[in-house]
């Protein structure tokens, strides 16, 4: 459904030329939940923006349903890493969440329902009338998540969506994302730094190398589909997988060569 | 104040023509206000409205485009316009110098303690006129020339009449050509009149005219004629009734009541003085105001 082919992005400007992404190729099936991890600055946000049609790749292409993505496709929602700046300061929380729904042309009653549910799901029911800048960092980030959730997208792109929330809330939100994914069958590309989170959430984990960025590894998470915070994280297979990913990220950061056997390293 | 006469019914029950006249709200145009008040215009089927603009920049284009039927302007401006081919034509006398040296409604003034005694001393001095290259500098030069000075050595500065008393007082200029009511203001501060430039330019100099566009003259000669007649009557009346003039001034100007009696009123002869205009045209031409002499025959009614 979502194909990234030979993606390359070079930023130039301000006297700097940075090859943010060198060559990325991978595929997401419809309804898949894939996590992306990689060292800081390796190009995860760049990748996401290219997939979202917000940034034109220098070369390579992104295909959605076989058609090239050149502009943001409809029915796609993005949670930006810069959550603070992605909320509109001139709108109250409720309006921020509602705006995309209005754009979708949903009737008023349905919009209200979605907004209320989404805010409740992220634990912000009583902040609906506040302005974003009256909220704490974590609350702002949750508003951005609520906006994406309420949108009921077909494809959901999330860039470190839980970076600013506390451990417990994070766990709850992780479960929320999986719930949503189950319920709506949405395709999710999820960027995170938390390796446990990547393994806990994803069906697959894509590990990016450090710059010059390529796909270092694509790891299938062979954990049972029904996951919960207590048991899944206690599972020895989980531990094995996370240790493997951690090593990969570490190696990626140090710029070590790719390990030869990809799949069985975690076993 | 004079009770406004009810507009006399125009002959034949015809609707009166609505006539707009562009004027400057100064002393000089008192006759037209007075004439309107006396019904000289309404009795000739004209419903007169005065539009007060600040000068030629607003009035001449207004008349040319037909926004105003008539306008008031000083003769030099009209001559310049004519020589440039602006399609306008004088229709009635406007205002004239009193012709009395030292007792004119405008003059060259200096501060009381100024070393300047006569127009001759103006050579090399800074003199304020309201507009450069106009009647002011031409007539001031005439005074200097007449007094035996070098007219080419006078330096002119452009300052509007209302600001002249202050400029003179502050010493920003050495002398100023002012007209009433600024003249009274200067004299009240101890200023002296060193020359009457209009008098020095030509005897009984005609200073301003009422004019209209060639187009109106051609399209509606009757209206022009009626305006001319009414104007003549107004001028004559004003010239003969200085008290009523002072009275009418309170209706359209804000001249201080205390200084009203002391104002020197200009002359309002019914007809322009052709000879004085020829003299002015000659002097203006010397000053380079226009390359080709204006056609006075066409300009002067």
């Amino acid at each position, binding site marked *: 459904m979502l194909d990234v082919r030979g993606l390359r992005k070079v930023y130039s400007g301000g006297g700097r030329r940075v090859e943010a992404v060198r060559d990325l190729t991978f595929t997401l099936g419809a309804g898949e939940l894939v996590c992306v991890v990689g060292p800081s600055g390796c190009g995860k946000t760049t990748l996401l923006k290219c997939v979202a049609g917000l940034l034109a790749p220098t070369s390579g292409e992104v295909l959605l349903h076989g058609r090239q993505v050149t502009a*943001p496709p409809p029915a796609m929602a993005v949670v*930006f890493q810069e959550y603070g700046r992605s909320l509109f*300061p001139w709108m109250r929380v409720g309006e921020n969440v509602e705006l995309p729904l209005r754009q979708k042309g949903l009737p008023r009653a349905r919009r209200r329902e979605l907004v209320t549910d989404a805010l409740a799901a992220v634990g912000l029911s009583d902040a609906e009338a506040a302005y974003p800048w009256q909220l704490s960092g974590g609350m702002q980030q949750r508003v951005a998540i609520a906006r994406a959730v309420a949108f009921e997208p077909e494809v959901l792109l999330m860039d470190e969506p839980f970076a600013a929330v506390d451990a417990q809330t994070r766990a709850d939100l992780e479960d929320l994302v999986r719930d949503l994914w189950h319920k709506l069958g949405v395709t999710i590309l999820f960027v995170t730094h938390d390796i446990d989170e990547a393994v806990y959430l994803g069906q697959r984990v894509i590990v990016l190398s450090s710059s010059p960025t390529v796909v270092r590894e694509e790891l299938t998470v062979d954990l049972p589909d029904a996951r919960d915070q207590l048991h899944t994280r206690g599972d020895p297979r989980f531990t094995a997988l996370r240790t493997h990913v951690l090593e990969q990220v570490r190696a990626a950061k140090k710029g070590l060569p790719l390990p030869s056997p990809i799949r069985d390293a975690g076993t | 104040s004079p009770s406004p006469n009810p507009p006399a019914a125009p002959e034949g029950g015809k609707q009166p023509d609505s006539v707009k006249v562009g004027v*400057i709200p100064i002393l000089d145009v008192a006759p037209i206000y007075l004439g309107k008040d006396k019904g000289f215009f309404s009795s000739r089927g004209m419903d007169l409205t005065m539009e007060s*603009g600040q000068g030629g*920049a607003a009035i001449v284009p*207004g008349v040319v485009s037909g926004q105003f039927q008539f306008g008031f302007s000083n003769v030099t401006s009209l001559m310049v316009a004519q020589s440039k081919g602006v399609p306008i034509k004088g229709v009635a006398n406007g205002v004239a110098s009193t012709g009395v040296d030292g007792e004119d409604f405008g003059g060259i003034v200096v501060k009381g303690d100024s070393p300047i005694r006569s127009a001759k001393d103006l050579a090399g001095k800074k003199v304020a006129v309201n507009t450069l290259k106009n009647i002011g500098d031409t007539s001031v030069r005439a005074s200097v020339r007449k007094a035996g000075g070098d007219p080419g050595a006078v330096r002119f500065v452009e300052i509007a009449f209302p600001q002249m008393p202050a400029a003179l007082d502050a010493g920003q200029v050495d002398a100023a050509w002012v007209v009433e009511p*600024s003249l009274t203001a200067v004299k009240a501060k101890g200023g002296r009149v060193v020359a009457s430039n209009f008098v020095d330019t030509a005897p009984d100099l005609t200073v301003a005219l009422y004019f209209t566009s060639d187009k109106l003259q051609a399209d509606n000669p009757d209206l022009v004629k009626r305006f001319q007649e009414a104007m003549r009557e107004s001028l004559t009346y004003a010239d003969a009734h200085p008290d009523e003039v002072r009275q009418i001034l309170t209706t359209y100007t*804000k001249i201080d009541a205390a200084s009203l009696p002391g104002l020197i009123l200009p002359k309002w002869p019914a007809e322009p003085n052709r000879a004085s205009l020829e003299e002015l045209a000659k002097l203006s031409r010397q000053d380079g105001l226009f390359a080709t002499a204006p056609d006075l025959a066409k300009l002067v009614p």
Partner: protein
Amino acid sequence: MDDQAPGGGQPAAPARRGTTAWLGVAGLATLLAALEIVPRTGLVSPDFFPPTSRIAQALATEVTDPAFWVALAGTLKGWALGLLIATSAGVVTGVLIGAVPVLRELTASTIEFLRPIPSVALIPLAVLLFGTDIRSTLLLVTYAAFWQVLLQVLYGVQDVDPVAEETARSYGLRAPARVRYVLWPTALPYVMTGVRLAAAVALVLAITAELVIGAPGLGARIAVAQQSNAVPDMYALVAVTGLLGVLINLGARAVERRTLAWHQSVRGEVVA
């Protein structure tokens, strides 16, 4: 810098507004006192620059004249209409030009060419077209005020936060929606400044047009007072225009407090 000082915790907003008003009155009073003192010290002659008290006297007589109120109404009408036209035209054009880069490039040189053309140079044109009609005033007022708004809008449009813009695009907001929900609120603070600038320019031009062309209004009255050497009356009328300026600004600030409650410049003054 007292805006940022801690301790500004949470004073009741109304009380603050009260202090603000008093400070403003004090500021005006200081100005007027200075204008009273300057001519009294002999720096300039009171004949040409009358002290405040003398102007106040003239103003007192002025306001008893019904013709003054007619003139005031005339000026305000020209001002309000001109400002309305200029603002709407400026905002619409500005958003359009600002949102479409090609248009912006195409029009930039023409805008820069037209802006410095002084309204006073257009006076003959205005008289030629409309005489002393209010339309003359409107033409001049609109011409001058339009650029003020337009330029502010152009700069405001450029101020859109790229992340906010990307958010809007990614959620499928189409151009009109992006203009309404992202671009417009971003530009609004600039627009407010533009309107405040334009409001004063419109007033200035309304009066100037009346002054020079003689369209009925305060300006024409000022012209009469000037020509008649009625110095205190002239200043009294000028003071009226100044007071109008103060009132207009009060109105603009009130609107701003409502529409820009979310903006840093306004919220910074409520919360510490």
